[in-house]
């Protein structure tokens, strides 16, 4: 297995730049998740890694070997497609064994009858047959080796696609939203299976998804992209706890982080008229920035208190969503304590409370904050402010 290095990767389609100067270092054995909304360039980046798209500028290294000029088959990477891309006319066994067959394929295999016999012999050779059987056994496909893909369920097809990738024992596995066509329950199962596969194979995985739950649960590293630009690269914990900008803060976490408009002045840090006591780390950052800021607080760091608490934000309950184990309470802050969400137009923050919330709509409440995990962003640029 090998490390991957992306150096100043750029991709342009005519005058449109889809990928802008991306640098990434993926360590051997990492499970990198390329995360971002539709159209952010994550699939394009993956396809460039695979060699299915050319790069406009930059270089890709697999270990010490530069691979961006090589055809896909010479990169020693396997690709799992969103649509599975199983060969409909080949059985499950033939699909899984196809990459191995191609290693032994000769031009004269195209000759009718003679070629067919030769292909059969190669497919039935101990080396290929055993690899296919072993892979099928790992994925629970042993009973289905003779079936055609169209007779399989979505989950089974997905496993065949994984099998076709595994059988080659490639240095890198590339996966383009492989679970997006599955229903929610199957997705959870397959998520665990792919994570286990990564653990067992100890390979380097690059996985594209727009689903942050997949990213957080499966990845050892996440690269968050937006409009072809890398927003942040780090472990899931770093991305969640230490977001680089308001975009990352808003993208990761359900419900997303509250971004509350705030300001530091000589008499302290305030949200609207309410004076807030910040931890030293944040206070130092706010003082240093000395500009309008956005205080980023996760919904689970907010507590609902009585309406007469001092130094607390006041607001009215406008929506209560029961999620089961917890409730998401949307609170519209009073006009003076204007808060913002991602779109900077709303005046509503979300609080996650444990259990079933009995709050009625329209109730006036106060909101207290645990600011130990809070972060501060520039209101102007959206970039993180650090001490």
């Amino acid at each position: 297995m090998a490390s991957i290095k992306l150096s100043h990767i750029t991709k342009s389609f005519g005058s449109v730049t889809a990928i802008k100067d991306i640098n990434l270092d993926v360590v051997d054995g990492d499970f990198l998740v390329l995360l971002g909304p539709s159209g952010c360039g994550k699939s394009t980046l993956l396809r460039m890694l695979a060699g299915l798209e050319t790069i406009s500028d930059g270089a890709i290294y697999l270990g010490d070997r530069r691979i961006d000029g090589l055809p896909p088959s010479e990169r020693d990477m396997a690709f799992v497609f969103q649509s599975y891309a199983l060969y409909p006319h080949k059985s499950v066994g033939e699909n899984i064994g196809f990459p191995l067959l191609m290693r032994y394929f000769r031009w004269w295999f195209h000759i009718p009858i003679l070629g067919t016999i030769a292909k059969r012999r190669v497919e039935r050779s101990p080396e290929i047959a055993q690899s296919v059987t072993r892979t099928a056994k790992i994925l629970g496909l042993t009973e289905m080796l003779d079936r055609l893909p169209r007779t399989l369920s979505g989950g089974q097809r997905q496993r065949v696609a994984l099998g076709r990738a595994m059988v080659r024992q490639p240095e890198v596995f590339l996966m383009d939203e492989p679970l997006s066509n599955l229903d929610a329950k199957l997705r959870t199962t397959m998520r665990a299976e792919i994570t286990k596969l990564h653990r067992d194979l100890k390979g380097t995985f690059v996985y594209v998804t727009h689903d942050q739950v997949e990213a957080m649960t499966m990845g050892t590293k996440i690269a968050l992209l937006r409009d072809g630009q890398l927003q942040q690269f780090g472990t899931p914990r770093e991305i969640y706890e230490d977001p680089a900008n308001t975009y990352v803060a808003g993208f990761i976490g359900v419900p997303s982080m509250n971004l509350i408009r705030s300001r530091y002045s000589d008499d302290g840090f305030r949200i609207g008229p309410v004076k807030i006591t910040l931890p030293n780390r944040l206070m130092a950052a706010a003082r240093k920035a000395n500009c309008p800021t956005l205080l980023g607080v996760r919904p689970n760091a907010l507590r609902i208190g009585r309406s007469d608490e001092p130094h607390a934000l006041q607001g009215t309950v406008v929506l209560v969503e029961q999620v089961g184990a917890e409730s998401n309470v949307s609170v519209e802050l009073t006009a003076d304590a204007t808060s913002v969400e991602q779109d900077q137009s709303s005046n509503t923050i979300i609080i996650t409370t444990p259990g079933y919330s009995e709050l009625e709509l329209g109730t006036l409440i106060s909101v207290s904050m645990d600011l130990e995990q809070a972060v501060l962003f520039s209101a102007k640029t959206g970039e993180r402010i650090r001490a």
Partner: protein
Amino acid sequence: MTSGSWRQGMHISAVLALLGVAAFPIYWMLVTSLTSSAETFADAPRLVPDLSQLPIYNAVFSTTQIGVWLVNSAIVAAGTTVLSISLAILPAYALSRLQFRGKGLLGLGLFASQMLPEVMLVVPLYAIFVTLALLDTLMGLILVNSAFTVPVVIWILKGAIDSVPVELEEAARVDGCSRIEILLLIVAPLIAPTIAAASVIAFFHGWNEYVFALTFVSSEGLRTASVGLAGFVGELITPIETVMAVGIIYTLPAITFYLVAQRYVVAGMTSGAVKG
């Protein structure tokens, strides 16, 4: 009668009527071939074949060269089919998948080539055939027939290749296939039903073609069935029952080929319905 069964009755009647219109000439040909010369021109035509006339089919084979003509026609039709499909699949793939300068013009050119009537090309082609020594050869006929079928076949195959998901080709590229291997191992099997349909078109063109076969082939032994059949029509006398018997014999191999190919066309349609 409910409106559903009434509609079904109408539907069946319409299909039977159309079938009758299509099948009647063949039936008439059969009846006429099995009618004696005396009866053929009788005022009240025979509607049921006279089975006592069946030996005429034996006689046709012994008195005419229909066996040789059929073999020649089969060689020309099969050759045209194989050559057309082999020549058309590469440009069809290129037109479907590759981006290159002049692609639109090429597509238009293929269409334009279909606008020229065959007769107009007889003289220039004759000159070319003389130069290339292709006159009076079946190979010449195969070549000239293919020239007419290839553009049609290219467009038919292009449409089928368009419908093959690009991901399958990309998967094959990652799995180690070259372009030509992708075409032969992945794309061709998936468009097999269309290849069968295109084969039917090419085969029938080769089987039915008359003008070139008449002009470019003069040896008796190389004559195709279409020309041979027309040879019976004399200025003064035409043996109707012989012509019709030969006509029936001439039609049968073509129908057989169609029935065989049609099975693949239909099988392909249903197997392709579920995306794999």
